């Protein structure tokens, strides 16, 4: 830019953006008061916006660049209006005004007018914001807003088609927006400052290409560029016609504007160094790519348009195709670098022209729809009589789009054509020669298309009976279309207005050579060569039309796989399925983890129980020497029973002694007590010897594997030993006198005990008992020697044993409690309670309890010993590590 001169700031760009935005807030309020008031208000606002934009013209003409700044987001919003921005802003405001005027009548059969008008004004503000933005952040902000708000235009009718189209539009816009975001970010990585100015030349090539690709893609989605145009043919037809006119005529130009700035501002070299050929290398290659995208877009778009029967859909495909023209122009400009004036002028002039005629065409088709409620070209016909003004205006617009001389499309198409030819002549690349041929054929296709539209809809015969409701469109609609048609003709006759007024100063500002445009105006405008190429195009168009109508070519259905849309659908569905699979796999993984955790918990619980049992068992083995359950129980039981018997023997002796003393009439307390005590001690001695002998016999029997027999029969066996009580008593009483006399009676008592033992032969009785009981073979091994093996084998059975052991060989809780109570009462009421109680209680409960306490103490001491041992080991280890 040569703009080193001081910048000129003005509030007008801010006003033009803020005015519709602020007005949008007022729309619902006014709508609630009165619809007419609101309608007047929105038309007034768009007119005001147009006036504000127009007011920028002198300032831009004088200063070339008008700037404005709003502090706020990310260092503020910046606006800058140069000639090109002004061009976009002017036609946007103009078409917007026409469309808004038109919408008042059109919307009569639609719903939610307030929403439409709010959307309308916000979109206008966003559009103006996009084209006036001075930096990429501001541009992105308004671009996103425009894209998202336009969603409400597309979905406005809320039919199923509209919803489907809107959702597709929305996602494409969002993806495009993110591509754009990425592209803008990357321009920062390339050293850009965010301004719409040439990026520094350094930076890796791949990064430059990625940035350029993302920017072109992001803007291209909006612009309806192939192959990301797929939303456009769905979205534009379903919107209300005035909105279609805006979508197709103006909003997609935001994308074109972006690509224009990308190619001719961001990636071109600095103005100061524009003479060096190699500096243009990148933008030249980028231009080539865009040129070919344009050629591809224009040709496929027109082919698809020819296959449509819905008039609005056909126009939508033409929007795609015409965007191809624009891209071709911009691409050629990029390719030509410093000499790209023709391409820029052609592309941008076509932007302007397309806005005018495409908006007019959509409005015209909308007028037809309002009256006939049909959009199918093959069902309409002969409307020129009923709607002559509409017909005339539509014909002007069709002449514009097909490039009839003296209509605006002619100039821009010729400029683009010259640009392509110029590009071809630069390096004589053969492919560009082909591109030029495709261009002419595409112009032919366009001509055919509009011959078809005008011919089928307005000429020919009426194919259906129309009532009186099919008449000329309302005046306001005609006025809107008339405004556009007037502009079409004006620009067709006097293209100098735009070329001299806008392009030449604008190009000069960017350091490009505008002389070639003057050359065009003087030498080529309406020259024979250009007109003849239009004639060729129309000849092609007429031929295709004739052939197509005759052969039914226009009704051909292409296979699915041709449509890029179909592939997108497949790809999206596949991606969705992949994510679903990931999500499911993750769920399955979670379930697996939680189940595994539960398994681990269960396993831990099992192991813990097992370890605990083994531990108890190991203690039992270590302390008692026997691990087999029955053996333990037998010994425990025998011990209790024999102990009871021992006490009974002592008691019998004491009772006898008391009886003897009573009969002898002893009354002296000391004497009495001394005798009884002597008898007790003697009896206790003998009884203990007997107990030991019997216990030894029992242990022998158990060791030989007769535990079960012992357990079952021990009580009967002991009952047989009652005669021993008499012997004990007799021996004790006999020895008592000597004892009192102080003589040693131990030997006598021992002899008596031995005699009693040999008398009763407890061991023999036991052995006999065992012989009578059938003993299973394997039981025989259950000796102390086999204990560890048994212990291991018995682990499983031992499960229940822990619980049962308390009851085994002892008493039930109920009986225990009853015994204890009885004993307590006994002790309280009995004479000399204290003395008798501590030694003479032969109750099973007491003995069993005493035994349990002993066992517990033994277990605990073992535990303590283990802990202590471990501590010792630990301390030892510590000591050694020191």
């Amino acid at each position, binding site marked *: 830019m040569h703009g080193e001169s001081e910048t000129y700031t003005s509030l007008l760009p801010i006003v033009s953006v803020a005015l519709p935005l602020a007005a949008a807030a007022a729309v619902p309020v006014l709508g609630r008061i009165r619809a007419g008031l609101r309608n007047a208000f929105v038309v007034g606002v768009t007119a005001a916006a147009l006036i504000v934009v127009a007011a920028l013209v002198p300032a831009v003409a004088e200063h070339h660049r008008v700037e404005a700044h709003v*502090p*706020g*987001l*990310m*260092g*503020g919003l910046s606006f800058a209006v140069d000639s090109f921005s002004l061009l976009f802003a002017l036609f946007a405001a103009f078409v917007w005004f026409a469309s808004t005027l038109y919408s008042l009548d059109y919307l009569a059969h639609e719903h939610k007018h307030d929403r439409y008008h709010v959307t309308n004004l916000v979109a206008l503000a966003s559009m103006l914001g996009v084209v006036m933005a001075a930096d990429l*952040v501001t541009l*992105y*902000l308004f671009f*996103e*807003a425009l894209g*998202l708000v336009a969603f409400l235009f597309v*979905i406005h009718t*809320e039919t199923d088609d509209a*919803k489907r189209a*809107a*959702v597709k539009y*929305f996602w494409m816009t*969002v*993806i495009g927006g*993110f*591509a754009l*975001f*990425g592209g803008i*970010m*990357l321009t*920062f*990585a390339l050293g850009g400052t965010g301004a719409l100015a040439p990026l520094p030349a350094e930076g890796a090539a791949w*990064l430059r290409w990625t940035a350029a690709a993302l920017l072109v893609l992001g803007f291209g989605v909006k612009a309806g560029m192939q192959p990301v145009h797929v939303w456009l043919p769905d979205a534009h037809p379903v919107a209300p016609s005035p909105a279609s006119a805006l979508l197709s005529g103006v909003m997609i130009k935001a994308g074109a504007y972006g690509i224009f700035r990308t190619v001719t501002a961001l990636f071109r070299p600095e103005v100061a160094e524009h003479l060096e050929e190699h500096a243009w290398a990148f933008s030249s290659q980028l231009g080539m790519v865009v040129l070919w995208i344009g050629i591809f877009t224009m040709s496929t778009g027109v082919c698809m348009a020819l296959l449509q029967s819905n008039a609005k859909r056909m126009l939508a495909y033409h929007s795609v195709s015409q965007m191809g023209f624009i891209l071709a122009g911009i691409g050629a400009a990029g390719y030509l670098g410093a000499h790209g004036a023709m391409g820029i002028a052609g592309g941008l002039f076509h932007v302007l022209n397309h806005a005018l005629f495409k908006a007019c065409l959509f409005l015209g088709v909308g007028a037809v729809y309002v009256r006939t409620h049909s959009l199918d070209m093959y069902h309409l016909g002969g409307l020129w009589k009923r709607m002559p003004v509409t017909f005339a205006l539509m014909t002007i617009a069709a002449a514009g789009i097909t490039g009839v001389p003296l209509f605006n499309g002619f100039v821009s198409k010729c400029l683009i054509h010259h640009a392509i030819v110029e590009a071809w002549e630069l390096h004589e690349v053969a492919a560009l020669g082909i591109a030029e041929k495709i261009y002419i054929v595409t112009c032919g296709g366009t001509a055919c298309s509009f011959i078809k539209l005008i011919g089928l809809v307005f000429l020919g015969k009426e194919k259906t009976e129309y009532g009186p409701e099919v008449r000329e469109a309302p005046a306001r609609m005609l006025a809107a279309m008339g405004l556009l048609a007037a502009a079409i003709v004006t620009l067709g006759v006097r293209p100098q207005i735009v070329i001299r007024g806008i392009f030449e100063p604008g190009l000069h500002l960017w350091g490009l050579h505008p002389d070639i445009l003057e050359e065009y105006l003087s030498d080529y405008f309406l020259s024979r060569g250009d007109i003849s190429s239009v004639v060729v195009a129309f000849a092609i168009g007429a031929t295709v039309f004739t052939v197509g109508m005759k052969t039914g070519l226009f009704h051909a259905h292409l296979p699915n796989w041709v449509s890029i849309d179909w592939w997108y659908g497949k790809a999206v569905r596949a991606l969705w399925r992949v*994510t*679903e699979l*990931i*999500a*499911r796999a*993750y769920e399955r993984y*979670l379930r697996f983890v939680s189940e595994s955790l539960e398994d681990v918990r269960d396993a831990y619980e099992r192991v813990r129980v097992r370890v605990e049992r083994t531990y108890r068992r190991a203690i039992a083995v270590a302390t008692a020497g026997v691990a087999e359950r029955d053996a333990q129980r037998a010994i425990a039981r025998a011990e209790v029973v024999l102990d009871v018997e021992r006490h009974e023997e002592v008691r019998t002796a004491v009772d006898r002694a008391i009886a003897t003393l009573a009969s002898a009439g002893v009354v002296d307390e000391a004497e009495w007590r001394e005798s009884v005590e002597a008898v007790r001690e003697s009896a206790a001695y003998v009884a203990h010897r007997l107990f030991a002998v019997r216990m030894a016999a029992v242990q022998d029997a158990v060791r030989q594997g007769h535990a079960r027999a012992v357990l079952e029969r021990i009580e009967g066996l002991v009952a047989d030993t009652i005669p021993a009580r008499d012997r004990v008593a007799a021996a004790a009483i006999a020895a008592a006198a000597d004892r009192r006399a102080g003589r040693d009676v131990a030997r006598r008592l021992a002899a008596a005990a031995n005699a009693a033992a040999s008398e009763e032969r407890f061991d023999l009785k036991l052995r006999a008992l065992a012989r009578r009981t059938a003993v299973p073979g394997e039981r025989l091994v259950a000796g102390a020697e086999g204990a560890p093996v048994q212990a291991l084998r018995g682990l499983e059975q031992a499960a229940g044993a822990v619980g049962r052991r308390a009851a085994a060989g002892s008493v039930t809780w109920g009986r225990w409690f009853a015994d204890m109570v009885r004993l307590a009462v006994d002790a309280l009421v009995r004479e000399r309670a204290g003395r008798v109680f501590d030694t003479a209680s032969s109750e099973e409960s007491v003995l069993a309890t005493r035994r349990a306490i002993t066992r517990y103490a033994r277990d605990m001491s073992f535990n303590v010993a283990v802990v202590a041992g471990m501590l010792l080991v630990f301390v030892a280890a510590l000591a050694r590590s020191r």
Partner: protein
Amino acid sequence: MGAGAEVLWMVPAAVFAPLAGGVAAAFSGSWPEARRRALLAVVSVVTLVLAGSVLARVTAGDDMSVRLVKMTPQVWIHLRVDALGALYGAAAAGLWLLALVYSFGYMADEHRLSRYYAFFMLSLAWTVGVAYSGNLLTFLVFYELFSILTYPLVVHEETPEALAAGTKYIVYILIGGSLVLLAIVYTYFLAGGQDIGAPLFDASVPRSQLLVVFWCFLAGFGVKAALVPLHGWVPDAHPAAPAPFSAVLSGMMVATGTFGIMRVVFNVFGVRLLAELGVMRVVAGLAAFTVVFAAVLAMHQDDIKRRLAYSTISQMGYVTLGIALLDPLAATGAIVHVANHAFMKGALFFCAGLIIKRMGVRSVSELAGAAKRMPVTAAAFALTSLAMIGTPPLAGFVSKWYLGLGILESGQVAYIAVLIGGALLAGVYLLPIVYRMYFREPAPIAAGSPLAESGSSEAPATMLMPLAAAVLLTVALGLCTTPSWSPLQIAKAAAEGFFR
């Protein structure tokens, strides 16, 4: 510049005010409802004012440092506020105030309110404490209190699901907390009990020991920050908890983990040392994976709160990514995203709570036509969703913009794809909800339901007010980024401090 003693009281007061409020709430069982509400609202506003003044003081350059209790001759319980902590504390106080007001409406017919309010206020105290911690020990104390004493809030509804989620929560959090404890003990062993400020470690410490400490810290805080292999508790805890607590859980509590990571990266290790260690590349990879993976999972959740919970995991991935890039711009983005995300996600959870409470539906597929019945809620949800995706000029855009700039500046350009992919996926999991609410025909209303009588189920103003405030904040955080008191500028200042 030291601050005068006359303002230093604000620092402990900001911690103790909600603490006192919580204790009072615990004994408020027999109070009239109005009195309890008035008290808690006053306490919460006071806390916000205090946190705001502390923030103002700190941004003005004051050194706010208060020593509270001497634990050992070397170690104090010590509050010291830097820009990061002040911003975090103020954001927490703001979000808690909104959630509290929302609770008044939302919790009105719930049980055991005094327990709820007590722990709710206490959790604010702990959060502010974490934010204002002056050394690692203080940090640990508040962090653990905060982690453990929020358990009653997670299980508040006492349904079997809530209890199961609570168990999961406490197990995850305790394991994470133990790792943090271990790491902090190790740090004391290696570097002593210095204050948070300049990095504690220098290159003289053996590399292997540094690595052990770092990974302990990261694993510990990663549990809280929901970094992907450690995120398991988040998607269960959120749907189980009451909506206002979900809002702070998502908005601030998960962010506490990232706050911890920031402290570790910027204050314990320091940027230069970590760059030498080279571990942050791994962390960045993990964070990037978190962003994408959680977003993919979120797409397929039908329970709206669960979907939002996964969204939180994804967004916290952004924050961790921003930290891990070790770049001042990325760190700015990370810090400011914590504040932005708090209010965005808070608003989304407020909406989800209203939908659950007023329409009685939890699943996304049942939301068709909700916009007709709850227009304000639907509008708030739509706007906040756009903000979450990063639509300019709303809050989410600011943080993503700075993250993007940071990614480029750090030269790891591939993460741009993650940044954009995550945002796109956010659109995929949030916008269909909006679409359903606005453009699907609602299911016929069952006769006899409260809806059938009024036709609208929009929430009362007490609940809409905090929602509206959160949405306005979301917009304001996007628009006001240039004044010096805006979170972005504070975050910038904080980040510059760390990279000096």
